[in-house]
Structure formats: C-alpha cells, structure tokens
C-alpha cells in the first residue's frame, strides 16, 4: 500500500530533479551566454590579414581588456550596490574626481605617488560612504542621492582642477609626477599585457571569492532579497549598505587613478557616462536591478561583452551612428538572454 503510494511519487521527483539539474547546469553559465555569442560573432566578422584573424590576435584581445578595465572595475563595485537593491550614478564623476585628484596632488602639490594615490582612494571611499549614509540612514532613494553625488563630484573636480585637464609630466623635478606612476599606462610581459588589465582581473577575482565565501556577502544578498527579514535576523543592514556604497566609491576612485595613469592627465569631465556602461555591464551579467540576485562573474562577462562589441564594430569600421543602433540592440538582446532564467 505504502509502496503503491510512493512509487509514482519517486518517478515524478526524479523526473523533475534531472530536469532541474540540467536547468541549473545552464544557470551556472548563463551569465556567459551573451559574451560567448558576441565573441563568436566577432571572430566570424573580424577582418583577416595575411590569413590571420585580426580580432583574435593577442594584441587586439589585450586591447579589449585594457579598454574595459576601468568600466570593469567600477562595475564590480556597482554589482555590490545593485545587489543590495541600490544604484550608484556617481561612479563616473568620482572617477573624474579621482583622476583630477591624483594629477593635482602629484603635479601641483608635489605629493609622492603612494601618498597621492592613498589620499585619492580615501576620498573616493569617504564620498561613497557619505552617499551610503544619505541613502541608508536618511532613507533617500539611492538613485537621487547618487544623481546629486554625480553633480557634486563633478563640481569639486572642476573647481579643484581649475576647470582644465591637469597634464601629468613625469620626472623627479617639482611639478613632475614620479615616473613609476606612468607604469599604469605600460604593458608588461614584453609589452603584451596592459597593467590596467591585470589590476582589473585581480580585483575581479578577489570580488568573486569574497562574494562566494564571506558572511558579508550573505548579508548583501539578504538585504537585497528581503530587507526586513535581514534586519530581524540581526543583519546590520544600515552598516552593510553604507559599506557597500563606500566600496563602490573606492573602486571608482581606483579606476580614476588608473585613468589618470593611462592618459597622463586628470580631466574634470573624465568618466562622463561611465555609470551607464557600468550598470549595463552588471545587468547584462544577469544581476537583477531589484537586488538580491546576481554575480560578479556575470558582471565581468558583461563588461567584456561591451568591450568586444565596441572592438569588433571598430574593426569593421561600422559607421558610428549605426554603431549606436547595434549596441542598443545587442544590449537588449543580451539582457533578454539573462531573462531565460526560471526564477521569480
């Protein structure tokens, strides 16, 4: 009798479990679908010279990674912010502020490289923390807080820089920045691998491990998923939120330092519009803007997707206006790919 009951039961369960296991398999790599697809298309469309596929040439691929490194680093920070259900529109402006800061401190104020960098990173951290406080403590929506933060950071950057990009000359005389700072623009492994790319990869790996293993990350997901439940379970919601915004500010500032190092200048308008690219990368990577669901792996994939897209469009010399169209469509498509997930 009991057998009779359980028997059909078993079948059902196993049936679903195999189904779901396949689904979850797909899941695990879903955030990469878009990247893989775009990559393949890029290889196919790439111009070929002397039988060599230009796109897949190591030089070109490293160019791609270098080109996305700043956006990528920002996007990593943005991922955390979005996971708690927030958003940060100030990242581009903070990048500009940090770029100006490093230039002004080293060139005009004759700071050493490390002091300058540390001050700038601290500034970014504090700026982020303040935004976090405004949104987490005073409950003002992150969108508006960081929209204001964007303008404030730009304002400060323009005033600080005197309204002009501050050029960075290298040397050890006064008004010159330490030569070592210019490394940020160099490539190692006999001129192959750009330093910014390396920094990006390191940051990404650290973030991935942190998100996978830390209790803090659990709290981040919990806040995004159900803030009330998190609070009742003793998660220090406010603190976590503030820290996350601080982290995002810090990473934006880091991107700004790299920016200055790569371009040998800190410009007050640097990084305009980067916030949208970063957010796009995060969403394309399958992180939900409503918070609680997502991954850094996806974000990295999303950033690379955008990089590959820009690169192949350039290699094919697609008309810039048409490029806008194509990018728009690809972004929607890529985001659509993420929707395939059953959840919700």
């Amino acid at each position, binding site marked *: 009798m009991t057998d009779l009951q359980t028997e059909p039961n078993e079948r059902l369960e196993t049936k679903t479990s195999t189904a779901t296991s396949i689904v979850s398999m797909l899941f695990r790599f879903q955030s990469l679908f878009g990247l893989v697809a775009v990559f393949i298309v890029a290889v196919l469309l790439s111009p070929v010279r002397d039988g060599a596929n230009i796109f897949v040439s190591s030089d070109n691929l490293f160019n791609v990674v270098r080109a996305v490194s700043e956006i990528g680093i920002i996007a990593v920070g943005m991922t955390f912010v979005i996971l708690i259900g927030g958003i940060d529109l100030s990242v581009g402006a903070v990048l500009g502020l940090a770029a100006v800061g490093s230039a002004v401190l080293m060139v005009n104020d004759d700071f050493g490289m490390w002091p300058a960098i540390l001050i700038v990173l601290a500034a970014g951290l504090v700026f982020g923390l303040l935004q976090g406080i405004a949104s987490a403590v005073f409950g003002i929506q992150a969108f508006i807080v960081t929209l204001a933060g964007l303008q404030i950071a730009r304002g400060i950057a323009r005033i600080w820089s005197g*309204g002009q990009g501050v050029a960075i000359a290298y040397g050890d005389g006064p008004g010159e920045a330490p030569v070592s700072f210019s490394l940020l623009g160099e490539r190692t492994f006999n001129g192959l691998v750009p330093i910014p790319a390396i920094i990006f990869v390191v940051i990404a790996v650290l973030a991935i491990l942190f998100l996978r293993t830390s209790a803090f990350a659990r709290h981040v997901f919990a806040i995004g998923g159900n803030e009330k439940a998190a609070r009742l379970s003793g998660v220090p919601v406010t603190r976590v939120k503030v820290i996350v915004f601080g982290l995002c500010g810090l990473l934006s500032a880091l991107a700004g330092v790299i920016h200055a190092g790569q371009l*040998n200048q800190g*410009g007050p308008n640097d990084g305009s*519009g980067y916030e949208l690219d970063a957010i796009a990368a995060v969403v394309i990577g399958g992180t939900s803007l409503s918070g609680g669901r997502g991954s850094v792996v996806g974000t990295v994939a999303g950033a690379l997707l955008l990089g590959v897209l820009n690169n192949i469009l*350039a290699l094919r010399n697609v008309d810039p206006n048409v490029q806008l169209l194509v990018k728009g469509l690809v972004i929607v498509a890529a985001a659509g790919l993420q929707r395939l997930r059953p959840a919700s």
Partner: protein
Amino acid sequence: GTTHENSGQGGSSAGQAPANCKGPSGHYLIGMSQANNAEPYREQMNKDIQNAAKAIPQFEVKISDAAADDSKQVSDVENFLTQQIDLLIISPNEATPLTAVVKKAYDKGIPVLVLDRKVDGDAYTEFIGGDNVDIGRQAGEHMKKLFPNGAKIAEIRGLAGSTPAKERQDGFAKGIEGGNIDIVATVDGDWLRDKGQAQAEAVIQAHPEIQAIYSQNDPMGEGAYLALKAAGKEKTVKVTGIDGLPIPSGGIKSVEQGRLAATFVYPTGGKEAIAAAKTLLIDCKTVPKTQTLPTQLVTKDNAADVYAKANS
C-alpha cells in the same frame, strides 16, 4: 603587415617622404579619429574630409567617434593600428591624453595629421588647425570696433573644463584690452542652443543694460538671440559668435539673416588634411610641421559670398 615594422621614424622628420608612400598606384586606408561627432563643428570636419577624399580614388577614409571620451579615443586609435592604416588623421578630444597613442602610431611609421588641437611633443607629421586664442582675440577686437566708446557685455562660455572654452575666453579678454568693454556677466552654455537661450534669458533679466553678447560658439549665440527676441531686444543688443559653419544651421547663415552681428570662421582643416595626405602618400613629398589656418570675420556684408565660396 610587414611594411611598417622596421621603418622606425618613417612618418617623421621633414626632409624625407614617409616610408609607406606607395605613390599613385597604391591604395590607402586612412583612419580619422574624431573626438566627438555630437559637436556640429566636428561633424562638419568629418564631412569636409569625406568630401575631399572622394576626389582621390586611392583613399579610403574610416571615421571613428570617441564621443568626447579620451579613453575611447585611445582605443579608437589602437583599433586603427590593429587594422594597419596607412595614415592617421586625429582631432584629439584633449591634448595630453592622446599624445602617447599618437606617438605610438607615429613611431610605427604611420604619418599622423593632427587637426584642431595639438598633441604634446612633436611626434606627429603635421598639425593643421585654427588658433582659438587668436580667434578669441579677434572677436574681442571686433567688439571694440562695434563699441568705440565702450559697452557692457555678457559672455556665454562653452562647456566648463573644455580647452576651447578656456582659450576663447582668454583670447577675448586680451582682445578687449584697452577699449573699455566691461563683461558684466559670464555664464556657461555648454556649447548648446537651448542652454544658451535659458542662460541668456537670466542674464537679460539681471543685466538689462547689456549692449552685446559674446558667445563662444554660434549655437549658443542663436539661443541668446532667441532670448533677446523674447525680451524685444534683438534689434538693440548685438550677438557675436564663433565657428561660422557653412551649413544651413550654421553661423554664416545666422549672420546673413541678421541674427548674429558677426561670427568668426573656425576652419575645420578637413580639406587641408586630405591635401596633406595626398602630398605624403601619393606625391611622396613632405609637408610642413604646422599649418595654422586663418580665421575670417563674417559680417552681413560678406556672409553670402563666404557661404557660397565655402560650399563651392
């Protein structure tokens, strides 16, 4: 490609032709890295280049748009290098940030023509462009002519933090020295018509006494004109602009139609760039390191002719 690797300073120093000159028989891929297509002036530059290039069958021009982002422009040039272009034309978004990558191209033996804004150092083949400071100065002097015994005026600046905004402001300041031209208000119009209009409206309210407006480009000047018109002052207050694009929506027409009192042609250098490219690649001759393009004062009297000549 193998042609460039060992050509060292091939594109460089005056006196010898570029190593990659293949004469009339060759086919040449020219990369044009534009700083920002969103600016009418730069869009015009692209047009001039394309039109000029049409006349030369050996040339194939590819244009990229950096959308006012230094980093993007660096990537654009990198991508051109990946495609092994034969010549690079670049209109840099900012000077210093683009210097390194331009040098990289130049050192690869690729001739580099820099338009509108110089990069640092001398790692380029030729610079072609107007002089914003000088144009600002002339605008200032013209203002003195318009008001021999002085005037109160307002200045509408371009986007804060952009080089031309600074240069055109400094130049103008020099230009008005001596004649007691008094700038009673300075506002930012971000190069945009609507911004210029709104800002001008406020200025007119705060300083009804102003007799003229110096706008750092024509679109903002058009905006200012609309504000004046709304206040019924378009007849009494003079507006001068800069750029003088020879297109229907450009400054020359505005002057011809009496909305702007004057404008100063800021040449794009597009034609000249293609000409230089021809000299370098097809004629295998050298080009001067610098070619500064003269500006031209456009007033109601000469507007029609200037427009016609520019479009001939």
